[in-house]
């Protein structure tokens, strides 16, 4: 599908405009900042992934024989913290969002380029704090920091970890702030809300959550740190405090946080599917408003993490019914994606394979959410491997596959090179197979009763654990491949044209890679989003003309 014509002379673009480390570390170009983030989050992905591998290795046998119990407890804690706060939450917004949103809205940059750079530095500072914490002893509270264990009993570096995540939160807030102002104020003339790519809508909804939710976990962590340092008693029953207050405050952010992690991915998939079906999205407005609905309802369901924590039956009823409400817009999106394929003209390039994988695995993950929202079932499977399987289906089978799909889709635009299609399809398949082998057995393990965060377990659970570990090694291979061939392509990949996918969207109207200021002239938009009929008609006519 790639079209070939590419200029032979090296043009100026954002990559070669300036060389030298200072030009990168002091850049305000949103595209360069996106790449800075790309390198940083990939680094943390491998750290988190390494912890995951150790966890799966330990769980090959029922006995705790690879690492000590305390070490294992630190491994799963830091796996969660690194993956959630230093990989998943930034990933798509900070890499693809930063790179693409100005291009998609027809602007030269985000509203606040210097704040964008600041957000990266804040992320790096937080990352250094986290690394230091991990290297000097680590933390073992679980990523959920429940009190009073975290405030009064753990002997690990809770304060450092809490502060690192506190700092990282500001990076997230500033990114969200930048996106909202950009989307409101910097759209090109003619680009009305109903003409925006749904990727932009998804990031708008994500940014609302980042802006309103993140400060709450920030202040919660401040209180935890203060309590631990000064023995305050806000969350400690021995001093008159309430441990459940911590849980409410924590989950008030951490539930919407999972929507921060999935909405951008949904946005990516909503760009890929129309392109590789050559038709507009089915039900544009419904998909757009579903993103907003998810963001709004996502703030109303936090205590579904606390059904067995000691909340009243009435509270549980309210949160259960609201949790079903939040499932509806996600279901609507799955149906709309599927309907978009109907009577399309479908191509199987790697981005599309990832999109297919996303829709399938997100469906499974989302359906298992229905199990968990059912109060009677949750009592049985809460804090078991069922929960672990559920959220990994969404975050890895969903968010991460969307991220990889997006990286492949926009790689030509970002790097000016094509990735090797054959290897990419193989990697997508390996990821899909490895993922299911790793996590499907965990649903069964959970219903059979295996608790989570267990260093050792009764022997009856071993077979499923071995299957899961085998899957994890396959999955690891699947993740290493793109790293390698993306790097390879930067030197040896075929140069990409402006629009190798013949995709709709303003980002595809500029050169690959773009120049620093994106557009030679400000575009004026007079067409609807996903105008694939016009694009393909023009292409057909052109092809007939060219021969």
């Amino acid at each position, binding site marked *: 599908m790639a079209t070939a014509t590419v200029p032979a002379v090296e043009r100026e673009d954002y990559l070669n405009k300036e060389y030298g480390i200072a030009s990168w570390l002091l850049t305000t170009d949103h595209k360069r900042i996106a790449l800075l983030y790309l390198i940083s989050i990939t680094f943390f992905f491998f750290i988190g992934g390494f912890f995951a591998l150790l966890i799966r290795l330990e769980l090959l046998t029922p006995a705790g024989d690879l690492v000590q119990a305390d070490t294992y407890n630190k491994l799963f804690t830091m796996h969660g913290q690194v993956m959630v706060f230093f990989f998943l939450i930034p990933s798509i917004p900070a890499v693809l969002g930063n790179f693409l949103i100005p291009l998609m809205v027809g602007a030269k940059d985000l509203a606040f380029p210097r704040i964008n750079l600041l957000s990266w530095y804040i992320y790096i500072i937080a990352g250094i704090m986290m690394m230091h914490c991990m290297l000097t002893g680590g933390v073992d509270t679980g990523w959920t920091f429940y009190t009073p*264990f975290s405030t009064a009993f753990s002997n690990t570096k809770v304060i450092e970890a809490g502060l690192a995540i506190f700092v990282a939160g500001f990076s997230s807030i500033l990114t969200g702030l930048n996106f909202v102002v950009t989307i409101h104020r910097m759209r090109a003339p003619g680009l009305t809300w109903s003409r925006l790519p749904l990727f932009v809508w998804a990031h708008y909804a994500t940014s609302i959550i980042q802006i309103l939710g993140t400060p709450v976990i920030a202040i919660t962590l401040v209180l935890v740190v203060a309590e631990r340092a000064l023995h305050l008693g806000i969350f400690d029953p021995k001093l008159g405090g309430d441990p459940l207050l911590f849980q409410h405050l924590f989950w008030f952010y951490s539930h919407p946080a999972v929507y921060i992690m999935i909405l951008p991915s949904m946005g990516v998939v909503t760009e890929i599917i129309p392109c590789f079906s050559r038709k507009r999205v089915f039900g544009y407005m419904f998909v757009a408003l579903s993103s907003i609905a998810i963001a709004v309802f996502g703030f109303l369901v936090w205590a579904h993490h606390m*059904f067995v924590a000691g909340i009243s039956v009435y509270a549980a009823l309210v949160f259960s019914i609201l949790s*079903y409400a939040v499932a509806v817009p996600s279901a609507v999106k799955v149906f709309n994606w*599927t309907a978009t394929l109907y009577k399309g003209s479908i191509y199987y390039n790697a981005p599309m394979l990832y999109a297919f994988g996303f829709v399938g695995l997100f469906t499974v993950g989302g359906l298992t959410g229905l199990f968990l929202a059912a109060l009677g079932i949750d009592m049985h499977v809460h804090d078991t491997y069922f929960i672990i399987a559920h959220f990994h289906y969404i975050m890895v089978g969903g968010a991460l596959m969307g991220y990889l799909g997006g990286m492949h889709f926009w790689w030509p635009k970002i790097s000016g090179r094509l990735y090797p299609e054959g290897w990419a399809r193989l990697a997508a398949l390996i990821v899909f197979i490895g993922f299911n082998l790793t996590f499907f057995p965990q649903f069964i393990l959970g219903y059979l009763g295996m608790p989570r965060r267990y260093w050792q377990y009764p022997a009856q659970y071993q077979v499923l654990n071995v299957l899961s570990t085998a899957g994890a090694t396959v999955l690891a291979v699947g993740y290493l491949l793109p790293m390698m061939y993306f790097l390879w392509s930067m030197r040896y990949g075929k140069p990409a044209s402006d629009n190798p996918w013949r995709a709709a969207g303003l980002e595809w109207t500029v050169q690959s890679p773009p120049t620093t200021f994106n557009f030679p002239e400000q575009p004026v938009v007079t067409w609807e989003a996903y105008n694939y009929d016009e694009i393909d008609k023009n292409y057909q006519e052109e092809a007939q003309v060219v021969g």
Partner: protein
Amino acid sequence: MAGNVDALYIFLLILSGMMTLLIFTALVYFAARYRHRKGVLAEQIEGSTPLELTWTIIPLGVFMVIFAWGAVVYFQQRTPPRDATEVYVVGKQWMWKLEHAEGQREINSLHVPVGRDVKLILTSQDVIHSFSIPEFRIKQDVVPGRYTVAWFRATKPGSYHLFCTQYCGTEHSGMIGTIEVMEPAQYEAWMSGGSTGPLSASGERIFAELGCATCHRSDSQGRGPNLQGMFGKPVQLEDGRIVTADENYLRESILDPGSKVVRGFKPVMPTFQGLVSEEQLNALVAYVKSLSPPSAPGAKNAAMSAPQSGPGQGNQVQ
């Protein structure tokens, strides 16, 4: 009751299986049927509002059914039957200490007769734990500073796993045990094998040792309310509120007496925080409960209300 959980689970499995099959089939079929062919353009379809409404409203309807079913099962799970045998459980890093109302003490194991309703009154003496018997499909977090409740009725003799399912530190995965369900005759035999007398008797001793009887007399002359027959009944406080005298109320009254002063009495009761262990508290609670007739008409055996200092809790449904 576990059967009810499994029934809902199987319903959800079938439903999810069908939906997954539907979506997967649609994806695969569309991907194959509409694979790009030379010269064939895609057909642009904006959408279909009737279709959108259909696939919004039908799932919502199905979800409401699931919600209702799950809620019914949950009510059952959180409402112990009257006359259930009571066992007091104290979780601590990293073991379970159990004490039957009849007095037997166990560590990391719980012997129960088959077919009997068993109500667990749980608390922690340090961090949050969670008491889980997967094979009975029950689980309840065990929180320091308050009582939580769970119940079950075992239907088959055997040995069943007990796990701690709220991460609690180094030996979280070692905080496990067994539930031993026995035939009634065996259970009687086990029970008679040595105990220190019923829990309420220990409670009576502690009640005397700590001088509670000085103020809490069984006539109306005491400086403190008469505790005879008050368990499970409403109590009017001096600020006008009415609360139910359940286990959490008793516990709070011992540890933080100033927070709920009964109408007509002065706030002179000293606090016993730090002076009684969790086990002693359990014994005292068992003793005070024994002063009320077990299932007097009108005595509520409700799902326990959380202490009023719990977030948004209040009295629960029976």
